[in-house]
């Protein structure tokens, strides 16, 4: 099994979750109120949450490799355009 970690602006959360569901992932979890710093050096801080930009969100998906392959194009297309990071690692069910 695989573990996918996605971090991007909460503004794109719906788009990303849609892609994840469309790929048939068995589930996902979302943590909001994430702050951080990315390529551009821009800091996403909690104090900007009230502004239109919002903070970041962290999405975790445990799924099999086939699902990863299926969601890859759509998710990567969103992240390339809007920003954010996505990493995959191995994970075994307890």
């Amino acid at each position, binding site marked *: 099994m695989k573990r996918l970690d996605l971090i991007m602006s909460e503004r794109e959360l719906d788009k990303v979750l849609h892609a994840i569901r469309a790929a048939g992932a068995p589930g996902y979890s979302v943590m909001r109120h994430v702050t951080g710093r990315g390529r551009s050096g821009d800091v996403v801080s909690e104090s900007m949450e009230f502004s239109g930009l*919002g903070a970041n969100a962290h999405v975790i998906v445990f799924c099999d490799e086939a699902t990863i392959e299926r969601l890859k194009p759509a998710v990567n*297309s969103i992240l390339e355009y809007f*920003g954010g990071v996505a990493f995959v690692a191995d994970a075994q069910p307890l």
Partner: protein
Amino acid sequence: MDTSLVLQNLLSPAILFFFLGVFAVLLGTDLEIPAPLPKLFSLYLLLSIGFKGGVELQHSGLGGNVVLTISAAVVMSVLVPIYCFFLLRSKFDVFNSAAIAAAYGSISAVTFITAESFLKVLNIQSDGFMVAALALMESPAIIVGLLLVKLAARDRRSDVNAGWGALLHEAFLNSSVYLLIGSLIIGFLVAFFNPSGVEKMEPFTGRLFYGVLCFFLLDMGIIAAQRLGDLRRAGAFLTGFALLMPLLNAGIGLGIAVFLGLSQGNALLFMVLCASASYIAVPAAMRMTVPEANPSLYISSSLGITFPFNIIFGIPLYMALIQRFIPAG
């Protein structure tokens, strides 16, 4: 210019708490108003200003220069982004120019609220329909901003780009416009059909209002000061733009106010609407529809410079001008 107006403003609790927030950052304290408390305050302020505006609108009716004033406000929110865009193009690409331009065509509700409080101290009346003008200036600016992008940058990726439906949706149904207009309508309906409901809301939407504004401005001070660093990166051109554009827009606003024969109070609110820039609705829409633009440019200029400038110096300055050109009611 009347320095007593400036002092009166500087020494109001609202502005002093704003400074307290600014200095908290400059002095390096760890004061913070953790999320989602700023959101609570900003929802509360929108709900309250909308509700009270609706109640006043019902009392004053839609006659007189109401429709003209609101129309003028909407026209300004269309024109401002257009001339801002061409000015900004001298320095920025299409995307950033359009996004910044949209922010300056739109408005800042907290600047408006601070101006209202300022009027209350001076015992100058203003009308509820100005809240409607406030609400109606957000969407056109957003649409103009996006139109400018569509016209000026034709070969954008279309697979991830939102279509027109989504853009109009974001322009008219983003949460702050929706809450403001919704509360306005509720205020209107309640004042009309159910006047005792107005009274029951009063302790919450009325009496508490100024204190919550102060608390929120403390946080705005923190945020504005945190943005100052970004500005150094953004450069002198944008800083100058963020200081001078409010003055220009306020000047045009004054001209329109005189032309329409607005009262002193309404004139100040009208000028403030023209002069202020958005840091909530517009960034939300731009982030979604023009991700090529760098948010730190449009957020920092509107929130880090134009907002503080307007609430600290702009409001008393505009009032001083009004007192020269518009006779007291």
